């Protein structure tokens, strides 16, 4: 079964509630998860947060029969899942003939070989879903984050936090009062400073 590699693109945690994982901010150890196709396709959290995820399809991992000695097949290379440096295309073992027909066939075979190598390379890297150079949400401070529409969408905020039905609410709180004079002076000074800045 194909598997998907999902990576958090945000600088904040991203909770995928129905998958049961919280992806740490991008670059973090837990910012990447590998999930199976069923989970990926059924997850509403992933669909809702797709803009904040980098998704890659990983090639199917199956045990293939061991190749016969001396025979190297393309299929055996496709099953490698780990990203490794690109393997240079091997020269074809064809006897070179000076005949133009043979040269033409050889050129076509070379072209096909390059295409196959490109497909293998793509499979090894995973096929990236999404546009190249896709715009990422900017890194913003707390206040800006809260005021930028849409930025907070991927974060899981419960619809209601404060419990409404609490019985026997009687909690001891320590209370203390103090003179307001120093506070008033500070407040006045801050007001003056803010006014001066506006002017």
């Amino acid at each position, binding site marked *: 079964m194909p598997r998907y590699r999902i990576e958090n693109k945000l600088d904040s945690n991203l909770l995928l509630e129905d998958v049961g994982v*919280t992806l740490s901010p991008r670059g973090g150890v837990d910012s990447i998860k590998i999930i199976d196709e069923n989970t990926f396709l059924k997850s509403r959290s992933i669909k809702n947060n797709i803009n904040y995820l980098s998704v890659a399809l990983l090639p199917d991992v199956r045990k293939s029969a061991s190749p016969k000695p001396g025979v190297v097949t393309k299929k055996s290379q496709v099953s490698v899942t780990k990203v490794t440096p690109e393997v240079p295309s091997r020269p074809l073992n064809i006897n070179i003939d000076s005949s133009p027909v043979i040269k033409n066939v050889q050129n076509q075979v070379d072209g096909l070989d390059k295409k196959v190598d490109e497909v293998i390379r793509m499979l090894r890297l995973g096929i990236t879903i999404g546009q190249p150079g896709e715009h990422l949400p900017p890194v913003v401070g707390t206040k800006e984050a809260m005021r930028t529409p849409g930025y907070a969408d991927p*974060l899981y905020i419960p619809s209601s936090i404060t419990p409404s039905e609490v*019985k*026997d*609410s009687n*909690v001891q709180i320590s209370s*203390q009062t103090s003179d*307001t004079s120093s506070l008033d002076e500070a407040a006045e000074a*801050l007001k003056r400073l803010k006014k001066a800045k506006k002017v």
Partner: protein
Amino acid sequence: MPGIGVDCGTMNFVAARRNSGQVEYKRIRDAFIDLPIEHKRMLKISNTSYMELDGKLLVLGDEAMATANLFNREARRPLSGGLVSSREFDAQQVIALLLKQISGDPEIPNEKCAYSVPAAAIDVQGSDVTYHSLILSKIFKELGYNPDPVNEALAIIFAECATSNFSGLGISYGSGMTNVCLSYNAMSALEFSLGRGGDWIDNGAAKAVGTTSAKMCSIKESGIDITSAKTREEEAIALYVSSLIDYTIDSIARQFVRAKGELLVPKPIPIVVSGGTSLAGGFLKKFQERFELHRSTFPIQISEIRAASDPLQAVAAGLLIYSTMED
């Protein structure tokens, strides 16, 4: 103009509000313990206040600590490392209940509520305060307020640095983390936090002498003087306090040098030290001593180093000042 300031710390929640010509501070320990419903009778007999929620008993605040000792359990802390955890929904509910207790109802609809938030920690991988801030904002909205997040170290500047035109270096030594803000003319020029605070001291000192961090915490809060430690435990605490102070001063210097192209502090500014961890006896003296060792290489001219007038309430006071400012 009405308004309320709420300091949402790892160890304490403190609300400040003007009331009949005075400032009223309400504080509650940021801790809870949940017990099965069968213990209700016992709690009633012992006259322990509790709440009943979803078939469980919740003991909140200072009484949670005493009840935890009674049942030989650890009280739970709804904030972890200074931040709301996204994994513990019941902890978020407890935060809401605690904040409701100290904030009360708004005086006017949509009353402004300035609440404290830390800056992202520079030494914690993936540190992010967005979720924390959003959850607190949602709670205050549910309570009927108009919430506005303010950096907690900047709030110290608002409360303590009027005489220096709100220029200064505010350092809040909390339980979960240490927050730093360099303010110039009431504008935050540099703010960051460190993932070390009172809990880090307790844990480190406990490991050093082979005991529990809860015990080290109680020793630390029992009024020891870290400049004249008398026992092994006190020496371990003093060592970790010194280490935290050095770490803070080094981190400020490094962060300032990193941002030096964008920062210009033309005249000497004060350092104001605040937060519950700074209440340990001799903390300010130790800070002054350690700073003198770094003064020659410190990138900012410092006019004085002083403690906040009330280290437990300075953040809430600064937030109250900010909340009464017109937008």
